[in-house]
């Protein structure tokens, strides 16, 4: 009874929400490139493997929990899946290292992500602005302080999880080499870092890309690779390079007789 009623409610709202989300997505005006195709692929590999790792990891730690029940994997399948996802994440991380070293986009990415003293002032200024203590909001470059923190937390977390994960994977080798208590430490670190990373994604990242009223229901950049130019100007006004490129492109398209109000890629309607 409860299942049917609440299920029907959920389905009803899901249909409405989906339609509205798509409509809002379509209503976007001119956009600027935010993520290249390679970056979106890297992000996709990251989040798929991350989610699988979170589920299969916490299913081990909390075997009697509901999600372990839902997952319903035997220990053998669970452990193999966790290793496969771990290998994919490490592979994506390794690729990213090559990417930032070898490609133009990559080098630009790391340059834009580099932390600067301004980021600390930005964080302070932003807090003051939203508490009503400041009249002006700080202006940001291509990545604001929150996004930079996110990126470097990801770098650190992935490195730590990869290192401890590989230690635990090669437990006999590491135990014989260093002593087994290193594995116990690695186990504890792997667990607490997993908790930290998962909560950081839920609290920090998901706010920025889902729940922030400015982007709700979603920041589509992960899928489209672009975001509305209006919003970009507002949030990343100091990234003159991108805005100049977007302006040049807008000028071109206008000159060619296109309506600048239509989305940049109207021929590919975004799907859920």
């Amino acid at each position, binding site marked *: 009874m409860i299942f049917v009623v609440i299920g029907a409610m959920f389905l009803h709202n899901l249909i409405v929400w989906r339609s509205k989300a798509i409509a809002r997505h379509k209503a976007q005006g001119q956009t600027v490139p935010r993520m290249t195709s390679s970056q979106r692929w890297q992000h996709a590999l990251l989040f798929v493997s991350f989610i699988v790792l979170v589920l299969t990891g916490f299913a081990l730690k909390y075997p009697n929990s509901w999600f372990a029940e839902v997952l319903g994997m*035997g220990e053998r399948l669970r452990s193999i899946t966790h290793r496969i996802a771990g290998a994919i994440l490490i592979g994506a991380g390794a690729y990213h290292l090559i990417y930032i070293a070898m490609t133009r986009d990559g080098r630009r990415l790391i340059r834009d992500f580099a932390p600067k003293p301004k980021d600390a002032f930005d964080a302070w200024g932003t807090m003051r602005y939203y508490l009503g203590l400041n009249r002006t909001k700080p202006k940001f470059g291509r990545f604001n302080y929150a996004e930079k923190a996110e990126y470097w937390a990801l770098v650190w977390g992935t490195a730590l999880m990869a290192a401890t994960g590989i230690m635990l994977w090669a437990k006999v080798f590491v135990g014989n080499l*260093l002593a087994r208590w290193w594995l116990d430490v690695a186990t504890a670190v792997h667990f607490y870092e997993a908790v930290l990373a998962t909560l950081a994604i839920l609290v920090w990242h998901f706010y920025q890309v889902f729940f922030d009223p400015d982007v709700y229901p979603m920041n589509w950049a992960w899928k489209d690779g672009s975001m509305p130019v209006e919003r970009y100007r507002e949030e990343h006004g100091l990234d003159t390079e991108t805005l100049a490129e977007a302006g040049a492109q807008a000028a071109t398209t206008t000159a060619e007789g296109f309506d600048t109000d239509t989305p940049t890629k109207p021929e590919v309607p975004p799907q859920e």
Partner: protein
Amino acid sequence: MCAQVLVLTLFSLACAAHAARKPKDEDCLACHSDSSLTKEADGKSVSLYINEAKLKKSIHGGMFTCVDCHKDVEASLHETPPAKISCGQCHAEAEQAYRQSYHARANKPGGTSAATCVDCHGPVHEILPASVAASPVNHANIPATCGRCHGQKFLMKASGESVQPFVSYQASVHGRAIERGADGAAVCTDCHGWHEILPANDARSPIYKFNVPGTCGKCHGAVEQVFRQSIHGQAITRGNGLAPVCTDCHGIHSIKAHLDPDSPVSEQNLAGATCARCHEGVRLSQEFGVAGSRVSTYLDSYHGLASKGGSVVVANCASCHGVHNILPSSDPNSTINRANLNATCGQCHKGVTQRFTLNKVHLDGNTAISARLRCDGSGESISH
């Protein structure tokens, strides 16, 4: 010569004539084969019917005539009923043993009714030797015979007892084996004895705690030998009642094969349901300095988590500590003695060296890191 023969013949005839005065079985059965023959005793009608076929097949019928036992019956027409014969007149030893038993004690006048000779051996005139398959005390029939009372819910309730021991036995590895026709499996009497069935708190009883290993060892002798050497067996030998005997881990009537998920010693149940009963709490640590929290620390480890996640290949208590041969790590024969740890861990983790094995296990999760950071890992004490 002729005279001698004559005398002998006459003597024989005389003897025969004397014997003829005693009734023959046919004479008795002339009346007693009538199934409607009854007498009144204490206002109740008591059948005096004897089933001839069963009598002839019975162990007594094959050995004796009626009057061999009913000596006071002089003539086939007897006015007075023959005196009651007690089994103990011939089976004194059995009766003596029975007098000690729980059945006899329960059977006191005014008390509840409990089994007497005929309840198990069958009607007096139809008793079969135990070796005969049809005998109620034939080995294969013992559970059914005891079950006639011990499987009767209302009967047992009336005596303040439960049928659960019998019901559990039926589902046990022993009960099922008997049902399949495997005569070697233990039946009630193999553990409880027969005439002299004693309660578990009687030191003479085969089910008295300290006698249990010997009782099980009648069949499981090799296991008993190993158990006697173990720390549990040693403690039992010293008279430590907190140490487990066979039934503490395996169950009593409900014993199941260790591969049966319902067994208390199955992979699934061993740690949480069985070893935990003693090795989790403070009882053993307070009394004997045996470390507690052995199960919670196991369950927090990868081994324990994976076992809770349903793995039956991951290490459980027995994988490292052994089964019947459990010994403290200080004992050179222990599977967790430092000299044997490489082999023990190496069962699963091929190629481990002492650098891997000589580390604390059973870590308290909350102090795991600090404990590890305090010790240098070079052959620290192994907690057991």
